[in-house]
């Protein structure tokens, strides 16, 4: 299907737009804060700041657009949030010049920062306060790279919308707020005043979003008046009508529904820089009633539906994740803001959630082929194979989307955490792989946790060998640990020590956000903040979950397995010899290193020896984190995903007992160590399914495939069987990384890291690294030709 001229042009504009730093938001916020001298409660202050933004930020309606509104003054003109983190001039220079994920910073922007923003926010940004309030132990662990901190320059975010906006306008939400205010118990509820402040702030935000939409309506009419082309003129008039209608009122048709969501989205990402942008969640099921009614009434055609969705897609792509600096930039080195649109899954009553619009959305994903929004299929055993096959056809074109989730296990995960089964079914995945009860949960990722680093510190009796500094607890001289069990016990103690430090830090940081930067607009959107009269950051949501995301389970497992196998079981060598080799980064110990790489059981091969070690480590991490309390009345759970943090974490970990050389990347997600799995995808999936996914809040498995393996109907069928089998084993997620020719070239250069790479040769498949050079060359050429 070819794109309409309009969509092609808007898409191309979006692709061509270069990300830049816009000072608009920062200037407006500064202007607002400069004027504040009176005693305002934090929610009121934040609501008035939001109102100031929505009343004054530039209105952007681009030529040909059907869905309107930008977060910045133009596509990819990206705002900053100085109340959270005010970039220094050096930061701006870094953003402008760094090789990856750069943002252009023009001279005007620099001078505004220099002359106005930096002087004002010095000592006022929350980031400075956060670091100041942390303990020395926290700072030591943070600097050593034991964990990262999600909330240091980004607002606690990571939540997804349910269907409420398709049923209620903001005027009705305001009425709910009014009712909650009227119901305050001033005699018995000691928080009544705080609730009044919060609820009034929410009401101010509702009005602010309506004003923002009205400004778009006015702008659209102004453009219509000047428009010569009658067709565009009619479109602009229609945009004016849509923006008058929503978000004040519930949407009546497909167009209004999309535009409504988009205003809400802009509200959330303008109020704060939440990580993992807000997103509409189950778009297919939310929009289906509008689609069906439009077709039935004859007011909507398939082509119009498709074009509106395409225009909607482009809006997401115009909004890169706000610029990140420091360790945050390393752990999440990407423009993507992780708005993950879900399709499929099961409905609230447990029935099959796939509908005709699901397929159209997948068409749009394929046709648009944009970085953002990201997309996922929520695959239930109740969904038809046709749904998964449709997704597979997109996956084999090789742009990493959509990812595939096990909808039935997600329901199990959410129910285990205490959600009602209905809320669980209305939930899904977001961000990378994280589960949530959409519209009802604050599920807060608090930071990545470097599991192999903790083992390294354990093997050094509490000392970080990179710096020589003692940051852990003394768990004993590793050469005197008499058994593998004793080593694991020492690791568990070390793990608990660092999780305690992280937990304590989180408790402080959560309170800093709740105290200084509440989020009344987001609070309008997430149940039960209105009913509770409490802010999202204050525990107002129905469910409040905190996560610490474990990174490097594959590396950790292979390290522990190597120690168990060679030191305690086979007694191939002694602990001291291993430690000496690690200190030398295997210089002069190549035989030992090869023994560790090639003659040691490895996770990812369906080998119970290594996989049982993995299970023990999974349980150790689970025990250390799960069930702790956060400050919002909720609990901690674990998930296992890295974004790009396995690269950063690897850069602070020296040589490891799995034969990995110093400073190299760790394994990612729950995937095996790169190149360690040598028995194909069924073995990988069996290995990773030996952990209990249902007791996590998300795990990430990356599986490399070459496009040839999915050739033809047969290839698609076998792909479907592979995924269905993995999900029968209760796997949470898998994404297929269809490799390109460059990856194959890299594998030719460095076979050790790519021993897992399977390619279709000719009627059969084989490990790429096992093929002769000539054949490798031919497959590279073929892959180059096949890729999109």
């Amino acid at each position, binding site marked *: 299907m070819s794109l309409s001229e309009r969509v092609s042009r808007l898409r191309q504009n979006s692709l061509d737009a270069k990300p830049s730093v816009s000072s608009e938001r920062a200037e407006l916020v500064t202007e607002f804060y400069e004027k504040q001298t009176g005693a305002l409660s934090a929610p009121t202050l934040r609501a008035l700041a939001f109102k100031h933004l929505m009343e004054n930020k530039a209105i952007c309606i681009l030529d040909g657009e059907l869905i309107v509104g930008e977060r910045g003054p133009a596509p990819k003109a990206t705002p900053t949030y100085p109340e959270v983190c005010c970039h220094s001039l050096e930061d701006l220079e870094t953003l402008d010049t760094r090789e990856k994920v750069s943002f252009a910073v023009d001279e005007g922007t620099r001078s505004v920062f220099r002359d106005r923003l930096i002087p004002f926010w010095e000592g006022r940004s929350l980031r400075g306060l956060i670091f100041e309030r942390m303990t020395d132990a926290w700072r030591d662990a943070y600097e050593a790279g034991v964990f990262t901190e999600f909330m240091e320059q980004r607002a606690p975010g990571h939540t997804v919308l349910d269907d409420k906006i398709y049923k209620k306008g903001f005027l009705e939400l305001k009425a709910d707020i009014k009712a909650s205010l009227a119901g305050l118990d001033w005699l018995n509820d000691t928080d009544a005043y705080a609730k009044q402040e919060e609820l009034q702030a929410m009401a101010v935000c509702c009005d602010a979003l309506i004003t923002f939409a009205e400004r778009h309506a006015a702008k659209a009419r102004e453009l219509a008046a000047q428009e010569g082309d009658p067709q565009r003129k009619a479109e602009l008039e229609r945009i004016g009508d849509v923006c008058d209608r929503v978000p004040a009122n519930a949407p009546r048709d497909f167009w209004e529904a999309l535009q409504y969501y988009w205003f809400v989205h802009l509200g959330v990402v303008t109020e704060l820089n939440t990580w993992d942008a807000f997103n509409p969640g189950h778009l297919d099921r939310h929009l289906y009633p509008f689609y069906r009614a439009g077709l039935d009434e004859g007011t909507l055609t398939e082509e119009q539906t498709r074009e509106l969705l395409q225009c909607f897609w482009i809006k997401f792509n115009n909004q890169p994740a706000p610029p990140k600096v420091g360790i945050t930039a390393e752990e999440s080195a990407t423009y993507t803001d992780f708005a993950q649109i879900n399709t499929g899954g099961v409905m609230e009553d447990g029935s099959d959630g796939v509908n005709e619009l699901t397929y159209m959305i997948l068409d749009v994903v394929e046709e648009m082929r944009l970085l953002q929004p990201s997309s996922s299929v929520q695959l239930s055993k109740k969904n038809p194979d046709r749904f998964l096959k449709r997704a597979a056809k997109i996956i084999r074109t090789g742009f990493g989307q959509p990812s595939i989730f096990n909808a039935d296990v997600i329901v199990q995960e959410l129910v285990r955490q205490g959600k009602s089964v209905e809320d669980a079914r209305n939930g899904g995945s977001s961000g990378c792989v994280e589960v949530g009860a959409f519209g009802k949960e604050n599920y807060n990722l608090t930071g990545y946790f470097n599991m192999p680093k903790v083992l390294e510190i354990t093997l050094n009796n509490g000392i970080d060998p990179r710096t020589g500094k003692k940051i852990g607890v003394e768990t004993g001289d590793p050469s005197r640990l008499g058994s593998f069990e004793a080593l694991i016990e020492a690791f568990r103690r070390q793990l608990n020590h660092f999780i305690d430090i992280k937990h304590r830090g989180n408790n402080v940081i959560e309170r800093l956000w709740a105290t200084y930067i509440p989020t009344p607009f987001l609070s309008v959107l997430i149940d039960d903040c209105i009913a509770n009269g409490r802010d999202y950051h204050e525990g107002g949501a129905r469910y409040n979950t905190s996560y610490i995301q474990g990174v490097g389970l594959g590396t950790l497992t292979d390290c522990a397995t190597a120690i168990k196998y060679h030191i305690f079981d086979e007694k191939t060598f002694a602990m001291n010899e291993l430690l000496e080799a690690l200190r030398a980064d295997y210089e002069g110990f190549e035989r030992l290193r090869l023994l560790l790489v090639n003659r040691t059981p490895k996770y990812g091969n369906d080998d119970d020896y290594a996989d049982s070690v993995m299970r023990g480590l999974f349980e150790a991490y689970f025990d250390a984190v799960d069930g702790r309390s956060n400050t919002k009345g909720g609990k901690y759970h674990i998930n296992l995903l890295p974004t790009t943090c396995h690269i950063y974490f690897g850069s602070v970990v020296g040589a490891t007992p799995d034969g990995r050389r110093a400073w190299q990347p760790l394994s990612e997600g729950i995937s095996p160590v790169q190149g360690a799995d040598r028995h194909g995808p069924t073995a990988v999936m069996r290995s990773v399914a030996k952990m209990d996914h249902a007791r996590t809040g998300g795990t990430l498995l990356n599986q490399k495939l070459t496009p040839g393996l999915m050739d033809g109907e047969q290839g698609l069928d076998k792909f479907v069987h592979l995924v269905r089998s993995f999900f*029968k084993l209760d796997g949470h997620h898998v994404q297929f990384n269809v490799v390109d020719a460059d990856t194959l070239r890299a594998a030719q250069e460095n076979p050790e890291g790519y021993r897992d790479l399977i390619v279709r040769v000719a*009627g059969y*498949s084989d490990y790429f690294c096992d093929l002769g050079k000539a054949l490798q060359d031919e497959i590279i050429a073929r892959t180059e030709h096949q890729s999109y």
Partner: protein
Amino acid sequence: MSVGTIFDIKKFAIHDGPGVRTTVFFKGCPLGCWLCHNPESQSFEPELMVRDGRCNRCGDCIEACAQGAVSLNEKTVHIDRNRCDLCGACADVCLAEAIEVAGREMTVAEVMHEIEKDVVYYDESGGGVTFSGGEPLSQAEFLLELLRSCKRCGIRTALDTCAHADSGVFRKVAVYVDLFLFDLKIMDDQRHREFTGVGVDPIHQNLRWLVERGAAVIVRFPLLPGINDDEENIRAMGGFLAALDNRPPVDILPYHGAGVAKYDRLGREARMREMPPPSAEAIEAVARRLAGFGLHVSIRGERL
């Protein structure tokens, strides 16, 4: 319990029958096709395979070899195969995995342990296990035990065979096989002898018996340019298959050069080194010709 010689067990085998399968490769074959794409499958004995690219020239293998058969040049290891007694000591010490032994003895229980790991995939996909080779029928007792074990576990079985086996053995085994992937190369006896070293005698009888008995058979026709792609052979094959009571489908497997590197690793001459694979047009023409006999024809498993 009997023991067999296996040279590979491949998981997620998706080109050896329906669904997701595990393919077990038996070592040793009664045929001696000079362009076999798995040359390590031919000999019944274990063999050394050397991967030049992996050798780090540590020299451990030289120490380990009691026969003085191993030496190093400036790039890689070299094995004097006349001196080598196939003890495998060099491979044992080769941590870089440059020297590997193709073929190891495995018990039925060991093989079944590997097969049973992927039952969930077989169940989901209608897949199972495929016994391939080499020629599995050449290790008939071992094969029979494996087949019986699979049946006991409810695992569907396929046999990839050239069917050069005693018909008594063949019939005994056939009871436990759900699908035959039946290799058919050359119809003329003399030419078959020249190319494979054996006649067509038991092969054609076994095929006829199998098909007429109503067994599920897919004929696999390896298309080898200049060897069996001539009109005479195609006509003979089409005629033979069309005359059977239940015409089996034919899957054409066009020659590819993937085996060349393996000859190098075995220190054997690769006579097919310069041989080009057949063109898409040529493959299609053969497929159409066979289809003209009223046969269902596919190319690499994809229906025409």
